[in-house]
């Protein structure tokens, strides 16, 4: 068991090599996190909401590192092993470039787009109230999803134009797919697709993960099959065509 009590004589003692090494490892971990922030790479793993917390962690680790370098922290023979497993390995994970294509949607990348929830209702982007038409730009997808979800009745009958990625799942009915973008709530592990259920007029579903531009009318309808489905908001497509891919993932600001 490690003793925490420190006698005044211990405070005055010279730092050992172990102290110096531990100090270096703690500072290395702090520096690796700082580099992630400086390069913006942290956005591939967490949302910008995490920034102040990560900065706080950097400061704490740096203080501990300096204290250890000065010999204020007691090191023993297990210190090296702990330093390797708990400080060096995480630092290497932060520092070394790892392709995230396996777990992140390739188009989500490291660009984070905030879903603004407090936008003034008089200046909604892309809204043409006179013609009952909403043209959703790539970066407003999250805002409009949120807005339509919260005020569904207000937008029933509107024509919506949007670009999104095609995703499907077993809960959808025949001829239905989701026009989706990626949402990160907390970190990369909870990255998930979200979007509008599209009812393709000709029943043809585009290739999964392809990018499409959908023009359709918002209606109440059945999502899923007659026996397994539920009533919800559907984008009844009048046209589905190809579109350029958009970058970035959404997060709640």
């Amino acid at each position, binding site marked *: 068991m490690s003793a*925490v009590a420190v006698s*005044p004589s211990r405070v005055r003692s010279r730092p050992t090599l172990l102290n110096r090494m531990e100090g270096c490892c703690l500072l290395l971990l702090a520096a690796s996190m700082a580099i992630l922030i400086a390069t913006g790479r942290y956005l591939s793993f967490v949302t910008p909401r995490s920034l102040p917390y990560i900065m706080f962690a950097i400061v704490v680790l740096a203080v501990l590192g300096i*204290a250890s370098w000065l010999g204020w922290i*007691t090191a023993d023979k297990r210190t090296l092993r702990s330093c390797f497993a708990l400080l*060096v390995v*995480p630092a290497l994970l932060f520092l070394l470039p790892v392709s995230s294509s396996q777990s992140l949607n390739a188009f989500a990348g490291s660009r984070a787009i905030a879903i603004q929830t407090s936008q003034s209702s008089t200046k909604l982007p892309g809204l043409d109230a006179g013609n009952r038409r909403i043209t959703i730009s790539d970066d407003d997808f999250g805002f409009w999803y949120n807005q339509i979800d919260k005020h569904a009745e207000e937008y029933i009958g509107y024509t919506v134009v949007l670009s999104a990625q095609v995703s499907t799942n077993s809960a959808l009915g025949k001829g239905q797919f989701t026009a989706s973008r990626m949402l990160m709530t*907390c970190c990369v*592990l909870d990255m998930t697709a979200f979007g509008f259920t599209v009812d393709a007029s000709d029943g043809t579903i585009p290739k999964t993960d392809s990018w499409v531009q959908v023009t359709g009318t918002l209606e109440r309808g059945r999502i899923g099959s007659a026996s397994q489905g539920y009533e919800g908001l559907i984008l009844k497509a009048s046209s589905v065509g190809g579109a350029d891919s958009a970058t970035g993932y959404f997060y709640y600001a």
Partner: protein
Amino acid sequence: MTDVMRTRFQFGFQTFLLATVLAAGIIIASPLIDTSGFPMTGIITGVVGLLLQALPFLLVGILISSAVETFITPAFIERHFPKSTAAGMLVALFAGFCIPVCDCATVPVFSRLHRKGVPLPAAIVFLCAAPVINPIVIWSTIFAFPDRPLITVARVSFGIITALIVGVTFVIRPADRHLLREDLRTIDHAHAGGTRHSGIQQESAIAPGGDVDSSPQCASCTTVPETTRTAGWRTRLISYLNHTRNDLYTIMPYMLVGILVASCVRAFAGSSAPSWLQGYGTPIAIVAMMGLAFLSSLCSSSDAVIARSISALFPTPALLGFLIFGPIMDLKNVLMLRSMFTRRFVWRLGITVAITCFMLMVALALFLELIR
């Protein structure tokens, strides 16, 4: 022979360098490992994301917990704790809200409260409630579930209900008189009229057979003698830094294992819930998540972030089972409790918490099914 092997395989500077190069090699080679079908890059990406998210909350928890341990004397807590059962249970809940200590720090406080004559049910309410409802835990849960604030409300509410039910079971059917291990009772007796040492120090220092305890426990439970508490600011600051660092080294391995498990689960299971874990499969999901919480022994200040990462795979009651049962009763806490209390008491406490938590989550699942 053992000594020779220990000397030969000691983790020295050369091993440190070699292990570092090896770890770097594995990380760099992860795209190559992917080609074999093992999702190495996905797992590493998940680990980095979770680590970046969970480490700050772990550090906040450790800093505050260490401050409580270093600067607030046990005598202060003992003085302000009522000796009646009902009032004690209420104060225990209030203390749980106010004292931001992680779950491993509550075990020694619980032991200390019991030894100082606080009614056992009240001490148990503190043990069960504090790691679930303290401000750091609430904060981290809100952060992890910004789109589902009811998860935080449910976690706190069910945490309180669980704590009270477990406490009440010890009112209805009181525990044996001697809960402390034989060796600790002897120490208590020996020190009863003599110089006061930190009870916590004695509790955690002694392991079965009189050896120095090497069980995995929070360094909060280690030595912070009264002399340190009354020493000058410099000594206290250094003691605080040592305490913080020791806590970090003690708790972080559990967090890393939990992060690795969560990342592997997500990498292999995908992002959508298996249908058999919904509906009638929910009790299985609850048991699975409670089991995962028990084995992973995560710190309650950062477990919400890890739960979030696998929230798409499990129904809400199972998720809450993970968030409530884990902080109260996990492998690390059981080992810590066993180093201080009799096997019989630890078994009873563990089973009572598990059954209470499971039944509450099943009731919640039924309720959610009804209102769907």
